[in-house]
């Protein structure tokens, strides 16, 4: 092998990629030619001189930690995936239905829910009183609400008490009545121009229009008069509720005309 032949193969020779049949001849040439041996030495030295930097120990620790965690996750995965997918589906369903759900809590729906909630409570009233005047005074002092508490005693419906509540994120008066063991809730809610009573059948009783609706087995009669909305919720029949509504309306008219 001549020097020029060796030079042409130098890279392959140093890289150990020279075919085996040529390696012997190249070895022999490098052994007898000091110039070419010097080139080989130089090439090897050059490669060795390329600096190397060790991986930082924190990187190693981090990778080991991540690998362990990935392994644990891989082990858990079969059990985790199904519930996780179910959860995602549930969340999606809620998100997608949210606009629809947001429409349903009409004022009446909200009042029925309160009626149901307080019907479970043994003493639902904050102020237990059978005296309408006392309750009116309590609302005035307690919340600055001018509330007219109707007297249904002629119809056998007894005043039990009252509590301050919230409807449509506003302070509202909640009056409790009983006929026998049946609870009648009367809500008096400050109305704003933007709210509507909600869906329901429009029924005219003694010249006044009411919205009636059955929610969760309870009957609700509601109306708006000026800047106040009224809602009556009970298991009592509609006739009784219309009578109660009419009496409340009449009492208000009487009061304002005085």
């Amino acid at each position, binding site marked *: 092998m001549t020097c020029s032949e060796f030079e*042409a193969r130098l890279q392959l020779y140093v890289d150990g990629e020279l075919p085996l049949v040529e390696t012997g001849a190249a070895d022999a040439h490098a052994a007898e030619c000091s110039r070419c041996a010097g*080139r080989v030495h*130089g090439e090897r030295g050059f490669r060795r001189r390329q600096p190397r*930097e060790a991986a930082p120990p924190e*990187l*190693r620790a981090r*990778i080991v930690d991540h*690998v362990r965690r*990935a*392994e644990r996750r891989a082990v858990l995965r079969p059990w985790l995936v199904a519930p996780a997918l179910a959860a995602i589906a549930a969340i999606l369903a809620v998100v997608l239905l949210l606009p629809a759900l947001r429409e349903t809590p009409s004022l009446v729906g909200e009042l029925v829910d309160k009626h149901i909630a307080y019907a479970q409570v043994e003493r639902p009233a904050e102020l237990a009183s059978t005296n309408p005047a006392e309750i009116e005074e309590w609302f005035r002092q307690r919340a600055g609400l001018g509330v007219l508490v109707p007297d249904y005693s002629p119809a056998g419906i007894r005043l039990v008490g009252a509590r301050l509540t919230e409807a449509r994120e506003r302070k509202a008066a909640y009056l409790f009545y009983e006929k026998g063991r049946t609870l009648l809730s009367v809500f008096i809610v400050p109305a704003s121009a933007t709210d509507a009573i909600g869906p329901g059948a429009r029924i005219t009783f003694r010249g006044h229009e009411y919205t009636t609706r059955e929610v969760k087995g309870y009957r609700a009669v509601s109306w708006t008069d000026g800047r106040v909305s009224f809602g009556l919720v009970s298991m009592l029949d509609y006739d009784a509720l219309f009578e109660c509504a009419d009496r409340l309306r009449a009492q208000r008219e009487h009061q304002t005309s005085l």
Partner: protein
Amino acid sequence: MAKRSAEFDQVALVHLDALYHLALRLTRNRAEAEDVVQEACLRAFRSFDRFNPGTNCRAWLFTIVRNVFLNRVRRGGREVFEGDTGILESSAKSATSPEPEGNPEEEFFQTVLHGDVERALQALPLVFREAVILADLEGLSYREIAEVLGCPVGTVMSRLSRGRQLLRESLARFAREHGYLRGRA
């Protein structure tokens, strides 16, 4: 349960220094190199089942490091390969010719400072840099480099010789700057 990660430690993570080194050479940035290596190791672990124990694990890991790096570069909208590789590779034929002045290589490289090699490597366009690192530093065979880079062995050879030539030219220039080597500017 922890068997697989223990095996991964033994077979793959023993090459962490080499992986980090390659990532450092590719990214030229320590923080980025760490991110690349971490992502690459996790990927490697996830596909560890597919690794054939008979083959070169280091080359397999290098391939993943390089792919992670290239993906990040592409995601960042950066240019992947600097330099006009076509022109550089076409002139690669003359690469093997040694210094015409006849300076013994051994003597020449004794004049080279450690920092100069670093600087010359960093300045090398990526296509040559990665080939040179895999061959000269990691000692991969041409075939393994071709697998890592996803190119034919012939291309590996031409990139290697062109890359080494460029390195040598840079080092000679640095040496002249330092006054270690006289001669042509």
